[in-house]
């Protein structure tokens, strides 16, 4: 017995070390980006104020460029608005088209709801980067909202919310997946990040029948339910057919500069819950 105690006394540091490493490894192996987002959004309840003011200082220096981008975007949207106003007036004159549907109902027919937020922390130096926003559940942010830049380029989607903050899984996270397609072509591929460059992502499994050229615009295919169809992802930089000659692997240069993000637009797919419930349990719905 004495010998056993003596032996344990000699190796208790090793045992403690192995125990801590075991717990840490187990936690790391079982942690998904959802658990990471959960921890991070809790931590930001404490440290969010400091993060927010640090990012505020950084933000100040990029205001000029951002104003220019926003002004351009406003001009674009003004153009679009004028187009829709004209269409609306045409529709109003055509009594058969929208008869019986008043304007309030027409607004509620839209599948997407938009809101804005400011980034308070963003990293690009890890394999699994996350972005924190200064908006949470009390501002109407919910999980699975799409996140795009003010100029309409894909950034990621919300994976966790606390009351005042939310955490985004950005395109620069190796766990990020979405579907993309070449603008003007209906074949789609899977978009993911290999962790190498913050300016490039990969599109794999794009059918060999797709009409592809270097410089083509790559947009969201609208199949993942997070992103509306047509959100700009980037441009084809290079492509190659895979070994089995069945599909293309495409390198896409990102449209959004993920290293210089400040403000973002959040898009909620109002039908997401309904679609997900139906997909999870298709039989009982009929």
């Amino acid at each position: 017995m004495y010998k056993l105690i003596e032996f344990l006394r000699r190796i208790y540091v090793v045992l403690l070390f192995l125990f801590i490493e075991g717990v840490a490894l187990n936690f790391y192996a079982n942690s998904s980006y959802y658990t990471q987002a959960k921890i991070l959004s809790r931590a930001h309840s404490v440290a969010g104020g400091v993060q927010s003011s640090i990012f505020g200082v950084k933000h100040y220096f990029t205001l000029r460029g951002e104003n220019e981008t926003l002004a351009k975007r406003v001009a674009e949207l003004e153009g679009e608005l004028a187009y829709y106003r004209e269409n609306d007036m045409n529709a109003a004159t055509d009594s058969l088209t929208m008869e019986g549907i008043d304007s309030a109902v027409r607004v509620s027919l839209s599948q997407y709801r938009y809101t804005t937020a400011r980034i308070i922390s963003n990293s690009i130096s890890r394999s699994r980067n996350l972005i924190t926003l200064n908006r949470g559940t009390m501002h109407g942010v919910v999980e699975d909202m799409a996140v795009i830049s003010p100029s309409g380029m894909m950034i990621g989607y919300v994976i966790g919310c606390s009351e005042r903050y939310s955490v985004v899984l950005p395109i620069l996270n190796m766990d990020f997946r979405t579907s993309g397609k070449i603008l003007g072509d209906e074949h789609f591929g899977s978009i993911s990040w290999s962790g190498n460059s913050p300016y490039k992502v990969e599109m794999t499994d794009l059918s060999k029948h797709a009409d592809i050229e270097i410089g083509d615009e790559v947009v969201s295919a609208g199949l993942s339910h997070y992103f509306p169809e047509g959100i700009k992802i980037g441009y084809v930089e290079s492509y190659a057919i895979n070994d089995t000659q069945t599909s293309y692997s495409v390198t896409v240069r990102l449209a959004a500069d993920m290293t210089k993000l400040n403000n973002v637009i959040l898009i909620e797919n109002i039908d997401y819950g309904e679609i997900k419930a139906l997909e999870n349990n298709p039989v009982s719905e009929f």
Partner: protein
Amino acid sequence: MQKNLTYAGAFLALVLLQIFLVDNISLSVYFHPLIYVAFIIMLPLDTPPVWMVVWSALLGLMVDVMTGMGGLNVFASTATGFLRPYLVNLVTGHAGVDDSSMALYRLPDKNFRWYIIAVVVMHSAIYFFMEALSLHHFFHTLLRLVVSDAVAVVFIYYFVKLFIEKILKR
């Protein structure tokens, strides 16, 4: 007591610098210096091994909680803390690290630099290869390690020097 408070201050300062300053510098995917490991480096060389493990684990835990990394920092820093006495032996050639006359500021500058490099590389190698979880992007991970460690070593060298000169020797 005052010495303990000094170390507690350094612990907090390093964790806060890592989270609020270094992690907010988004320069490149290759730039991710892990400067908080300076705390493991500056702990007295005669720290009992059990406290080395406990302090290193707490350090990793603090960074994990604040950055949302699930256990990765705990894993890397505990291993580094546990292996530190062996690294000290390696760079100083001493047979026993529990020699109480041995102090950080008595190490010759050359040994001191090698000691910092050894601890930083050990810690970040565990961190980066565990994060990548494969050898598929071996050279990419290696480049991350080299760039990040170069920055971390320079920062830690001056941080620990400053700590020794201005606080420990005062």
